[in-house]
């Protein structure tokens, strides 16, 4: 019983290994890029718009509202990063309906990579929005004693992001594997549905938490009072 899709290696050339996680991520990236390019090739404004354009509009408008409700104004600045996080994790988790598919987010490598992206983006957005000095000063507010706690919290919430997503996805696929070997057909289907639900919730949680961290770093001190 393997813990993560990292363990199945498809192709090896010297030190380079292609495991299932990497190949699945590439397929997902190709699917999302080609799909969105085809959908947005001919956008029209009319009474009746094509179905996929409607779906994409709902998605983008929904993500924008969520980002604005967290407090990041204008939302279009952060829409590419946070929207891509949500769409990638959501599609990676939703495609578990396909038989034989293992979500790349069930591997700690993928979730750690996504968490490191968020970890890097928080000071990046904070410095571009408020300037280097103002951002560094926020570490010593309200007193200098808080400096180590702020630094520790930066690392620990990144770790928490990675482990939360990994744990949820890994437990879903492992539960399914165990149940398939014990009970016949109906009960594993209910657990798969639960796994889909938690996958969507975890995608939403990941992007909302990233938005909250970025908002905490970019808002000026006066706005908090």
């Amino acid at each position, binding site marked *: *019983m393997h813990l993560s899709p990292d363990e199945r290696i498809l192709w090896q050339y010297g030190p380079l290994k292609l495991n299932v996680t990497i190949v699945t991520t590439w397929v997902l990236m190709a699917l999302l890029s080609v799909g969105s390019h085809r959908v947005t090739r001919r956008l029209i404004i009319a009474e009746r718009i094509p179905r996929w354009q409607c779906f994409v509009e709902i998605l983008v408008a929904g993500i924008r509202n969520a980002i604005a409700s967290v407090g990041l104004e204008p939302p279009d600045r952060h829409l590419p990063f946070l929207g891509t996080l949500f769409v990638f994790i959501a599609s990676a988790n939703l495609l578990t309906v396909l038989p034989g598919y293992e979500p790349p987010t069930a591997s700690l490598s993928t979730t750690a990579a996504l968490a490191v992206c968020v970890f890097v983006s928080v000071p990046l957005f904070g410095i571009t929005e408020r300037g280097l000095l103002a951002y560094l000063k926020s570490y010593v507010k309200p007193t200098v004693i808080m400096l180590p706690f702020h630094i520790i919290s930066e690392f620990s919430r990144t770790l*928490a992001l990675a*482990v*939360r997503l990994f*744990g*949820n996805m*890994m437990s879903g696929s492992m539960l399914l594997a165990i149940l398939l070997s014990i009970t016949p057909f109906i009960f594993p289907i209910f657990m798969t549905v639960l796994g889909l639900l938690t996958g969507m*919730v975890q995608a939403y949680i990941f992007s909302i938490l990233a938005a909250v961290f970025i908002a905490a770093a970019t808002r000026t001190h006066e706005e908090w009072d």
Partner: protein
Amino acid sequence: MDSLTWIAATSIVTAGLTTGIGCLGPALGEGRAVASALSSLAQQPDAAPTITRTLFVGLAMIESIAIYCFVVSMILIFANPFWSHVLTQTAGK
């Protein structure tokens, strides 16, 4: 008992205890969170979207504590470094 048996027995017992005790706290916390969300929904039904969204975010944060315990249990059962170390030692002998 030799070290092989010690490691196996301790890992199994600890894995069971980790998940068993570690899921008590988050379960209680989630119950309290949902209870207070329900009472505030009853008081202000028109704030339902905000309350529901905040409830889900809070539930995911609480759930992650249980997930940490589950990950530790899985590591103890399936990816136990002490077990593999001791196995390679006995295989070498």
